[in-house]
């Protein structure tokens, strides 16, 4: 049996209240807040974080497939699943692919992953769904859309939920789209989109699934579903005869907003986190048709290793005080930006060092060091090193808050960090209040966009205050 072995979630730290967006434009506003990716986050870095959460306690070397699902890939041409696979530590022989451009990319990716395993092509496949969607300013989309990522690991071992059946339909419909050069998602007619692209297609797929699998919808534990508008989700529940309070998995619209492809996968993670064994969960998503997938939880769901998950991610948040800060994060204001130098050749040579967070241990004196030296920095022994994975936690040895390179009112902290288990590294800090940085502070290491030198996305590690410190 194929099924879900693990899940992981990532919400960016910052939340912007809908009332603040309303205030900015003098518009009415909806309830709650939305999650906003930092200026150095995109769908790739957030997919990485959800992937790390999903692989808690699991050897990434055994994961031989990765599918990245998004409508907001940071490249129009260039696959991102290989980037995420390298950072997560998957083997070079892992099968990687991106499924993009449709809102049901996440469910299609899960179905595809299951088929890869059933066919014998792969043994364990990670699906990372992640979105940072751009909405037009002064629009209701701006209040609706939020950023977030979720990941699930499919395999045939240690399953927390069995994958039992699926049903898909394909539909040509002009619902939501973004052309080659459009900055923002476009709509023609809300009612058409809600009634047919979303509700009509999802209902057809779920009913088809119930009939095919021979289940009664009234008896399922949870429906984890995409949505166009949260009210439409209630409409679906009514039309399917579901009890919305008991049976709808909360997609967290009021706390993180609607993160497109990630939305149904986040709702699915929420269902997994809050469901007893032997419950049916339907995962459904719309987008140029619809997918409906049926899972049944196992006893093992009670003994999953600890992870940040939905609860941890909801607890770990900081307010984004102003719309202006949001505009800065999303680069909605025109500013001259520096263009640091970069080289695709150096990246080719150093990618394992840069993305793998690898250091080395001198076999003569035992010093763990970074980056990969030829000659030991302490005992000067040449070429006697063993590569080691550095731990992504440490303490600040010294730091400065730099107002020069930041180019703005807020400084960038540069931190010398002594890592747990050895190694010293030098990183800038993100998601922080610079005034509160101090020597001895505990930090965690996160994967971020560093700059756009040479016209490509240069990703690297940064540090941020550890969650323990924040709580």
């Amino acid at each position: 049996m194929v099924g879900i072995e693990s899940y992981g979630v990532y919400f960016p730290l910052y939340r912007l209240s809908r009332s603040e967006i309303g205030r900015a434009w003098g518009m009415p506003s909806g309830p709650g807040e939305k999650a906003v990716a930092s200026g150095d986050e995109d769908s790739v870095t957030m997919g990485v974080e959800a992937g790390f959460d999903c692989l808690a306690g699991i050897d990434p070397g055994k994961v031989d497939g990765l599918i990245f699902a998004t409508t907001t890939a940071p490249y129009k041409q260039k696959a991102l699943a290989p980037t995420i696979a390298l950072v997560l530590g998957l083997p070079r022989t892992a099968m990687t692919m991106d499924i993009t451009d449709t809102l049901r990319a996440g469910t299609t990716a899960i179905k595809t992953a299951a088929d890869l395993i059933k066919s014998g092509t792969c043994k364990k496949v990670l699906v990372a769904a992640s979105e940072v969607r751009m909405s037009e300013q002064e629009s209701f989309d701006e209040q609706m859309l939020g950023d977030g990522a979720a990941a699930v690991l499919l395999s045939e071992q240690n399953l927390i939920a069995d994958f039992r059946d699926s049903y898909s339909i394909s539909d040509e419909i002009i619902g939501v789209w973004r052309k080659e050069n459009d900055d923002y998602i476009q709509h023609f007619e809300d009612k058409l989109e809600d009634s047919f692209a979303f509700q009509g297609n999802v209902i057809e797929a779920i009913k088809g699934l119930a009939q095919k699998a021979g289940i009664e919808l009234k008896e399922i534990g949870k429906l984890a579903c995409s949505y166009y508008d949260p009210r439409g989700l209630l409409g679906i529940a009514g039309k399917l005869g579901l009890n919305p309070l008991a049976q709808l998995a909360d997609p967290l619209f009021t706390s993180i907003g609607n993160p497109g492809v990630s939305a149904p996968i986040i709702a699915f993670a929420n269902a997994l986190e809050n469901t007893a064994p032997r419950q049916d969960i339907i995962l459904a998503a719309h987008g140029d048709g619809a997918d409906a997938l049926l899972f049944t939880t196992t006893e093992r769901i009670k003994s999953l290793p600890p992870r940040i998950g939905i609860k941890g991610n909801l607890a770990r948040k900081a307010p984004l005080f102003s719309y202006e800060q949001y505009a800065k994060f999303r680069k909605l204001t025109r500013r001259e930006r520096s263009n640091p130098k970069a080289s695709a050749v150096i990246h080719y040579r150093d990618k394992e060092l840069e993305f793998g967070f690898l250091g080395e241990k001198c076999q003569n004196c035992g010093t763990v060091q970074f980056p990969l030296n030829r000659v030991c920095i302490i005992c000067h022994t040449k070429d006697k090193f063993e590569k080691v994975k550095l731990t992504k936690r440490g303490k600040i040895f010294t730091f400065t808050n730099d107002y020069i390179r930041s180019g703005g009112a807020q400084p960038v902290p540069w931190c010398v960090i002594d890592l747990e288990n050895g190694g010293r590294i030098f990183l800038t800090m993100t998601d922080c209040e610079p005034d509160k940085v101090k020597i001895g502070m505990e930090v965690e290491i996160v994967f971020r966009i560093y700059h756009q030198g040479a016209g490509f996305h240069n990703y690297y590690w940064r540090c941020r205050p550890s969650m323990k410190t924040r709580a």
Partner: protein
Amino acid sequence: MKTLKDKVAIVGVGYTKFGELWNKSQEDLLVDAVYEALDDAGMEAREVEAGWCGIQYEFTGVSGGAPAEFLKMYGIPFTRVENFCASGMDAFRNACLGVASGMYDVALACGVEKLMDQGSRGLPELGGARSIALQFPPAPSIFALAATRCFEVNGWNKETLANVAVKNHEHGSHHPKAHFRKPIKKEDVINAPIISWPLGRFDCCAMSDGSAALIITTPERAKATRHKNDYVKVLGSAISVHTLLPWLHPKFDFVGFPSTQEAGKKAYEQAGIKNPAEELDLVECHDCFTITELLNIEDLGLCPRGQAGKFVAEGNCNFGGKIPVNVSGGLKCFGHPIGATGCRMLVEITKQLQGRADGLQVKDAKRGLAHNLGGAFTVAAVTILGRNDT
């Protein structure tokens, strides 16, 4: 290691005013400084047998061809020396080795940098693309890493740093060639806008243009020049290079500079100096940032480790104090045209020892030390000069 002591004499010095020299090019600056040095030596340009010029940035000029072209000194060996902020002093050291080896009788050591042509928002970034894992922060952030650590370990604070700025600006207010010539108040230093915490605007030296030059020869030949009575001798000159990436060195403590310590030790050995605070009459030490001067004072052995804050606060490094540091006003008042600074300090020490300082004159100075520290505390240069009767 052998010594340069008694093998090299300085017979001519020259330097430009330092500052925002909008109407001067690097050619103007180098020609002004070198011809002032030649005039001071009573020599013609054609008497120079070899030249070394400190230039850090390629926009100031690449290769020995740049200074040779400005000066039209064709046909002799001319070398551009780049060694971060020690570029100028390393040019001088190379010239000394040229004379001490017996290869050349008359050599030119000079330095020039034209920073303001590139705009004034901090030092321009260096070089081409490199691995993203080998990041190099802006200069103030590099030294701020040491300041933050010293606040923690030595109990220093913004006032400890401010004492250095106030002292050097008081000194520099007397110097006609300094970029800044106004005394400043301690509270203004402490409350200035932050550049890289904890370093504020007055903790940092300025972006400036400038050039300096020295004509050196053998002591024997010096006795036949117009400075036969007051030529200045080299007592020792050393360079030490330590890690380029201290933030990745697992044992780097950020409360001292190993390169300065090592260069100081080697220069003292050459000069036969055992107790620097007693035997030296003045020190021009690298004060690109206030924290830099404090740690260098300790590294050069002028006071015990961890005590520089107190040592400066008590006035020991003031003009008239136990061991005056940066009586010229230092980099704090002259700014730091990188390639020129080391030579500018050596010009200052030479004129002090000759009793003809342009700013405050240290009374009866016999021995003086000049020091640079460049990169990420990476390259340190120390040169000790003495009157010819020492």
